[in-house]
């Protein structure tokens, strides 16, 4: 193909357009033809068709050259799911670790919080006294067994 600033007649332009449509031109030649068509005043069905094809080709190239647009919004549900998971685990952990909790029924009636705490704490004190009694009994029994065993051993 002649250099793009050379003058072409109509027939030559149409022939080039036909070669373009038959994919007989190199990329460089196609680019030069596009330049020629943009700067010439010739018009014919072949030229129009070629210009139309060049427009379509250009839009396809632009679409292919566009970098995929990274949408920030794609990450929002992922981050929200992670945050919900972490908060859920934290809430369960906190609930398991929580503060005191007291329920008391007295003679079939549920007691209010203040009375419930008083009764529960009194019960805990009673429990500690129970365990002290049991431990003292155990110690006393063990001492009896020890004395009995010693007595038996001495009498042998």
């Amino acid at each position, binding site marked *: 193909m002649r250099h793009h600033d050379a003058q072409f007649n109509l027939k030559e332009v149409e022939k080039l357009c036909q070669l373009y449509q038959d994919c007989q031109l190199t990329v460089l030649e196609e680019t030069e033809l596009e330049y020629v068509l943009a700067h010439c005043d010739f018009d014919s069905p072949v030229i129009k068709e070629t210009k139309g094809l060049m427009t379509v080709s250009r839009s396809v190239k632009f679409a292919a050259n566009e970098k995929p647009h990274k949408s920030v919004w794609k990450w929002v549900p992922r981050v929200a799911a992670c945050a919900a998971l972490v908060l859920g685990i934290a809430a369960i952990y906190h609930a398991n*670790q929580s503060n005191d909790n*007291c329920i008391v*029924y007295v*003679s079939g009636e549920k007691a209010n919080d203040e009375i419930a705490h008083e009764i529960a704490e009194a019960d*805990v004190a009673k429990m500690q006294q129970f365990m002290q009694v049991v431990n003292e*009994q155990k110690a006393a029994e063990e001492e009896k067994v020890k004395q009995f065993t010693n007595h038996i051993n001495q009498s042998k």
Partner: protein
Amino acid sequence: MKRLIFIILSIATAFTAFANPPKLNVESLFDGRYNNNKSVTISIYKNNGNYYRGITIKNNPQIIKKIAEAIEKDAPKASDYSDHQCADGQYTSLQIINNGETIFIGLQRDKHDGGFFFIQGKEKAFK
């Protein structure tokens, strides 16, 4: 992302699977059956990682008997069992180890068809 969530959930499930609740017969006594009973006081108390449940009985030998039967059913699981008769009544106690913690169970029977029963231990022992 999905793999990470799956791994986290698997780890959480594995941790919960390692802990076994003790499944004690005495725990069933706190299922609400005596909440409306006028001869008992029921206390359920959780504080600083300690878990306590108690029943104080007045003049009700049937409930005392039920509690004693539940304790006898759990006795085989106990690492320590004692039963003493003394001036102020009968003291029955169990110690059961679960999840590395000790659960204390006690029943004191007085001479007037009354008594005091409790279960106490760290919360971890009951999970």
